[in-house]
């Protein structure tokens, strides 16, 4: 099911930077620095390999730079547009692999544990459990969880990235969280 872009309630925070990049490609660097971590994170959590994630991230930014003139403020935010490009590049990479993404997320850095060593150990253990549970999710559910929790996209933006309605994304998120709750129990 595909959807038309919906009109946002709030202005796109990236619009000034996008207009600057459309006038002068050198200004694309602002958007690159702003979104490199997040696009890379999305690719990494879906591919499970740093080298592949770098490759897809590179393709995504080069494609975004090549198409920046075609971006219009007509509903979808810039970041939804950018993640849509990354999603398409990711789909190509997964197709060329010829198999479902085999994600091994062990290479992700552990979250900061603060000064307390016991707390740090608990957090590291939680992080490992969560990563293993994520690996058990279907690709679509994992995409929704990563885009929401790692990249901070709203349900509406995720819908634009994945070509689904906002309602469908909410349902997917609900089911994914329920599955994770069972897996982590």
């Amino acid at each position: 099911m595909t959807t038309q872009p919906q009109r946002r309630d709030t202005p796109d925070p990236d619009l000034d930077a996008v207009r600057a990049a459309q006038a002068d490609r050198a200004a694309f660097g602002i958007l690159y620095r702003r979104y490199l971590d997040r696009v890379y994170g999305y690719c990494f959590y879906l591919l499970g390999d740093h080298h592949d994630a770098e490759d897809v991230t590179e393709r995504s930014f080069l494609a975004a730079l090549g198409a920046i003139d075609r971006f219009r403020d007509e509903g979808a935010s810039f970041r939804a547009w950018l993640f849509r490009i990354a999603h398409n590049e990711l789909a190509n990479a997964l197709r060329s692999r010829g198999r479902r993404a085999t994600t091994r997320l062990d290479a992700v850095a552990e979250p900061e544990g603060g000064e307390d060593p016991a707390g740090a150990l608990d957090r590291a253990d939680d992080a490992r459990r969560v990563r293993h549970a994520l690996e058990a999710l279907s690709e679509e559910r994992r995409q929704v969880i990563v885009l929401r929790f790692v990249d901070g996209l709203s349900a509406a933006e995720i819908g634009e990235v994945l070509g689904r309605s906002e309602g469908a994304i909410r349902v997917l998120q609900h089911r994914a969280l329920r599955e994770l709750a069972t897996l982590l129990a």
Partner: protein
Amino acid sequence: MSQSPSTAERVDRAVGRVLAGESTGAATAAAGLAATDRGIVEVAALLRSTLPAPPVGPRFEARLGARLSGALPTRDAVGWALRHPGRLIVTGAVGSAVGVGVTAFAVWRNARRVPSPAHRLLHR
């Protein structure tokens, strides 16, 4: 008459509050979720605290940054040609026609030129 939000919508609201830093109890209550759904909101809080953005390698970051700023003109030209092959052919044809025309005109003009007295003396 407004419809009451679905459970999925309430969960999404609770997730938004958790991502903004609210406690699971407050987020569950504010989103209008039943206490039995609190486990889902707790998973959301766990995801928030345990899913870091993986670090980007500094060498990769620098290499891609350089590629984005350096390879631009060539990529643009190639991209334009690939997007508009018809225009590329027309541009080439017009360019060739102009070249042939200019050469023919130069030859014709040279042939019609009346030699100057000094020229006639030299080539007698």
